[in-house]
């Protein structure tokens, strides 16, 4: 699953990039998409990491209440990351936050991140996001006032605008609205798991996503910040109920190399899904 995520992109992302290239008018913008697509082809052929920033893996685990595991899931995932770092290989990106000493294994205190959610039945699903620093560094959390609903759009556009070319646009934009501070942040990141061609099931959110996407693409930042009409591949919004006195809004950007993969328990084996 880690290899698949590092060396290939999901179909929906490739299709979105191809659409951008076809629709491009500007010479420099088209060149960027051509480079991206050529790079994807090479990476797949050579089974080499798409980007040298192989990021940090973020796992989202859905664990069935009735499932009994005869192994430790967290240490299993840590071992998988260490093994992938050696064998693919991945760049060792993880350091101590203060003294900046590299762990050399992509495993460290509290990392890789594993977000677990209990679900009914005997399901086990592991979703993986690979996050590079260029995009992750532009994450934002705004604690708005409840009366400031109209500022949600502005917060999203400001984040995208301020980030400019740095998060490797066109980005996928995850927005988490509501919950509490950390719930909003988690929702923003989880929103990145949804395929680009899958509309939001909530009609109100789907309308907002459409509006934010159009507005973001009018910013003119363009692919790699070099100008053009495609600044985002999509905006995905998730929401949760929140305190009557707050309105948390979190934004998480993912670069155009929106790497993700999934594995599901089928029978007694994990099967990696082709996203």
């Amino acid at each position, binding site marked *: 699953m880690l290899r698949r995520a590092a060396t290939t992109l999901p179909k929906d992302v490739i299709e979105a990039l191809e659409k951008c290239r076809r629709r491009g008018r500007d010479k420099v913008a088209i060149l960027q998409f051509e480079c991206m697509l050529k790079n994807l082809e090479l990476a797949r052929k050579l089974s080499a990491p798409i980007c040298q920033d192989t990021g940090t893996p973020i796992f989202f685990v859905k664990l069935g209440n009735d499932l009994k595991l005869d192994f430790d899931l967290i240490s299993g995932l840590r071992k998988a990351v260490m093994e992938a770092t050696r064998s693919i290989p991945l*760049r060792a990106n993880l350091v101590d936050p203060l003294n900046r000493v590299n762990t050399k294994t992509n495993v460290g205190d509290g990392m890789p991140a594993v977000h677990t959610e209990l679900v009914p039945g005997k399901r086990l699903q592991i979703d993986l996001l690979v996050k590079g620093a*260029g995009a992750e560094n532009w994450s934002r959390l705004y604690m708005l006032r409840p009366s400031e609903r109209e*500022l949600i759009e502005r917060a999203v556009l400001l984040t995208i605008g301020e980030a400019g070319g740095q998060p490797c646009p066109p980005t996928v934009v995850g927005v988490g609205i509501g919950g509490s501070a950390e719930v909003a942040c988690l929702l923003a990141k989880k929103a990145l798991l949804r395929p680009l061609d899958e509309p939001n099931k909530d009609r109100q959110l789907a309308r907002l996503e459409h509006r934010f996407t159009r507005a973001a693409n009018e910013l003119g930042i363009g692919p790699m*910040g070099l100008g053009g009409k495609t600044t985002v591949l999509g905006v995905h919004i998730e929401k949760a109920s929140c305190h009557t006195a707050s309105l948390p809004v979190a934004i998480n950007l993912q670069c155009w190399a929106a790497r993700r993969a999934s594995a599901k328990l089928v029978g007694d084996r994990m099967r990696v899904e082709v996203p």
Partner: protein
Amino acid sequence: MKKQLVPPLSEKQVRQLKVGDIVSITGQMVTARDKAYARAIELLRAGKRLPLDLRGGIVYHCGPLAIKNKNGWKILSAGPTTSARLDSMQAEFIERTGVRALVGKGGLSENIADALTRLGCVYLAFTGGAGVLAGQAIKEVQKIFWRDLGDAEALWVLRVQDFGPLVVAVDTFGNNLYASKIRLMKATGGSGSRRNDMLRNGRRRHP
């Protein structure tokens, strides 16, 4: 037509390049990022020398992913890193080292772009994330200096062939492909004070 740049570059050569030009590099290119920038500046301030002469050279903002086998180092993926992270050191680094071109992604802030005009250095954008494509143009790892900084932060001396396509994104005429976008963003950002309140300090008067 794609123009070939073969370092060492002269100031005159660099001052002929204009934003939007598509170029590629053949010859030597040296990687440097946060830690290498800091060490280079520290050494040069102290009147010491760098392990290699960067005058007229090309510096690549990159922390490559490579493996070592019996034939030496092999580059797997080596795309650009975010150049703006180095903004606080950029001007002094260029001035003290004498480099004539930076290769990176994401652009530079406007004041650094002005410094490039003054110092006679251009900024060339390579497509971020296109690490394998970049790796294909890197023919040889000639030397690695300062590995004690960590492999991603070390100075990798690379021999490249037809490394590109690169877009001249900041030239020496004061043109900056990224700046026009910043202005556009400001134009859509609403009133300044409220915006900055939101951006920098969060909301001050909470309920």
